[in-house]
C-alpha cells in the first residue's frame, strides 16, 4: 500500500542519513584530517542525537511538553557510572558497557514511570512546569548523595563522606557534589552510532505500530480517542517511559565518555533540557530525521564559531532563527514543497525522454 511504503521510505532515509554521517566521520577520522576538537565532539553528537530522538517521543508523538529530560539522562548516567566502578570494574569493557546501558535504561524507565504517575495527570503548561521541577530535583538530590561500599554492603548518606562509616577496605563511590571518579572512558563513536541506530529502530517502529497509532490518536484528540476505547493514561505512560529509558541510554553513554561524572547545572540542569527541546522544535516536532539534523548542527556550530569569540552566540542565535523559519514558516514550507515537486517532475521528464 502507498501508505506503508511512504512510512518505510521515511524510516529508510533516516537510517541512511545516520549511516552516511557515520561513514563520513569515520573516513574523515581515519585519513587523519579531523581536528581533535571535532574528534572530541563525536560521542557527544551521538548522545545528543539519542536525546533528541527520545524527547521527540514525548513532545512530537505524544504531544506533551516535557522540560525535565536532562533528569532522566542524569539517572541513566549515574546508574551506568555506579555499575562501571563497582561490579563492572572487573569485566571486559564492552560487556561492562553493554550491561551498564541495559541497567541505565531500566532504572531511568522506572524513574520515568514513578514520575509519570503524578505528572501525566496534568496537561499542557502545567505538565511542562512539573517535569521541569522533577528534572531539577533529580539533579540536586544526586548532588548531595554520598554512596560507599564495603564488606557489609552499600552505605548511603546525604551528610558527608565521613558519615558513611565505611568499614575496612571500604570505597566511596559517589562523593556528593564531587560525583564519581575513575570512570573507564570506554565509549567511542562506533558504539555511540550503534546506540543511535537502536534508538531510531525503537522509535520508528513504535510510530508505525498499533501502540504508536494509539499514542498519536490520543495526541490529536483525547476525547475521541477515549470514545473508541483507547486508554489515555496507559499510552501516555508508555510514551513517557520509553522516552525516559532512551534518555537513560544517552546518559550511560555520556558517563562512559568522561573520567569524572558530576551532576552540575551545566550538564543535567534545565539548560540541558531546553537544549534538547530546541533540537526537537527546530527539527520539526514529531520529525525524527529533522531532530537528528538539528542536534548535529547545533552541537557542531558553537564549536566551529569559537574563532568569532564574542560574536559566537549572536551568530548562533541568528542561525537558530533562520532554521526555525526555514522549517516552519508557511511560506518557506510552501517553497520547499514547490522545490521538491519541480525536481521530481524534472526527474520524471528525464526518465520519460530516456525511455
Amino acid at each position: 500500500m502507498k501508505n506503508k511504503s511512504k512510512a518505510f521510505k521515511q524510516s529508510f532515509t533516516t537510517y541512511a542519513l545516520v549511516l552516511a554521517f557515520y561513514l563520513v566521520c569515520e573516513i574523515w577520522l581515519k585519513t587523519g584530517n579531523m581536528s581533535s576538537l571535532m574528534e572530541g565532539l563525536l560521542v557527544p553528537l551521538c548522545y545528543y542525537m539519542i536525546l533528541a530522538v527520545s524527547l521527540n517521543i514525548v513532545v512530537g508523538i505524544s504531544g506533551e511538553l516535557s522540560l525535565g529530560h536532562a533528569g532522566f539522562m542524569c539517572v541513566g548516567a549515574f546508574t551506568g557510572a555506579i555499575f562501571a566502578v563497582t561490579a563492572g570494574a572487573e569485566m571486559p569493557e564492552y560487556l561492562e558497557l553493554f550491561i551498564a546501558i541495559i541497567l541505565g535504561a531500566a532504572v531511568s524507565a522506572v524513574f520515568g514511570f514513578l514520575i509519570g504517575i503524578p505528572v501525566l495527570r496534568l496537561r499542557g503548561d502545567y505538565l511542562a512546569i512539573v517535569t521541569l521541577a522533577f528534572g531539577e530535583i533529580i539533579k540536586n538530590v544526586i548532588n548531595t548523595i554520598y554512596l560507599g561500599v564495603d564488606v557489609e554492603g552499600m552505605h548511603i548518606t546525604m551528610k558527608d563522606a565521613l558519615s558513611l562509616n565505611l568499614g575496612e577496605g571500604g570505597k566511596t563511590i559517589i562523593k556528593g557534589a564531587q560525583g564519581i571518579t575513575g570512570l573507564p572512558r570506554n565509549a567511542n563513536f562506533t558504539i555511540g552510532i550503534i546506540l543511535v541506530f537502536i534508538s531510531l529502530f525503537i522509535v520508528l517502529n513504535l510510530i508505525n505500530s498499533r501502540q504508536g497509532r494509539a499514542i498519536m490518536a490520543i495526541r490529536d484528540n483525547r476525547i475521541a480517542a477515549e470514545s473508541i476505547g483507547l486508554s489515555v493514561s496507559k499510552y501516555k505512560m508508555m510514551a513517557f517511559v520509553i522516552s525516559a529509558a532512551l534518555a537513560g541510554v544517552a546518559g550511560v553513554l555520556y558517563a562512559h565518555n568522561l573520567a569524572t561524572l558530576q551532576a552540575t547545572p551545566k550538564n543535567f540542569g534545565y539548560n540541558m533540557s531546553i537544549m534538547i527541546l530546541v533540537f526537537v522544535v527546530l527539527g520539526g516536532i514529531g520529525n525524527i530525521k529533522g531532530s537528528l539534523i538539528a542536534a548535529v548542527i547545533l552541537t557542531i556550530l558553537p564549536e566551529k564559531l569559537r574563532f568569532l569569540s564574542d560574536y559566537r552566540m549572536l551568530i548562533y542565535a541568528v542561525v537558530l532563527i533562520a532554521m526555525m523559519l526555514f522549517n516552519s514558516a508557511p511560506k518557506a514550507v510552501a517553497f520547499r514543497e514547490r522545490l521538491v515537486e519541480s525536481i521530481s517532475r524534472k526527474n520524471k521528464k528525464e526518465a520519460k525522454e530516456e525511455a
Partner: protein
Amino acid sequence: MSGADKNTSGNILLDVEKLGISFGGLKAVDNFNLKIEKGELYGLIGPNGAGKTTIFNLLTGVYKPDTGRIILDGADITGKPTIEINKAGIARTFQNIRLFSNLPVIDNVKAALHNHYRYGLIHGIFRTPLYYRTEKAMDEKAMEILKVFELDGVADYKASQLPYGRQRKLEIARAIATEPKLLLLDEPAAGMNPQETHELMETIKFVRDNFDTTILLIEHDMKLVSGICEKLTVLNFGRVLKQGETYDVLHDAEVIKAYLGD
C-alpha cells in the same frame, strides 16, 4: 439472562431509566427514560439546549449521572468510564467533528480497530510475524469499512485534508470500526447541503442494515429525521416531551408548539 427476563427485555438493546444530571442548580436532564430495540433507527430531537448532547455524554460516560440507570444489552453500564462503555458496545460521533486530524484517513479507522486486533509492544518494535499478520488484517478491515463510506480512494490523505462532508463520514466509519452494538450520531447532517444529506441518509440506513448495529441519532434536519428514523423522542428543557412512532410524534400539537412557539 433467565428465561423470564428474555420475555420482558429480550429485544431491548438500550434501557435507560430515570436518568438525571444537574449542573449547579440547573437540571440539564431530568427523569429521562428511553427504550431502544435491537436494530432500530431511533431519533432524539428537541430545540437547542434541550439536553440532547448531554444525554449522549451521559450514555458514553463523559458525565456521570446523578440519578438513574443505563442498561446496555442486559449489562449495567451506569457511571462507567468512556473506554469501558466503548468496549461494552457504544460508539459515537461528535457534534463538532473530532478526528485524529494529523493521522492518515486509514489510521483513523485503524486506531478504532485497536481493541479488536492485538499484539504486544515487543511485537510492534521487533516486527515479528504477528505484527505483519495483524497489520495486514487491520489494513484489509479498515479498507473494507472505508469502502462503504467511499473513502477508500483517500485512505492515505491526512484526515484534516478531507472536505467537511467526508470528515463527517470518516467519523462514522471510525465509530463503526469499534463494532458497536449501539451507534450514537450527534447531528450527522450538520453543515451538509441537501445533496450530501440525502447521501448521508442512504449511508446511515446501509450501516444499520449491514453492520448489525442499532442507531440513535440527534438531528435538526427534519427531512432526515422523518426520512429514516422509525421512532422518536422529543426532548424539551431536559425532559421527555413526547415519545413514539415518527409520524405520530411529528404531528403532535405539543411538539409543534415546542419547536415553533405559540
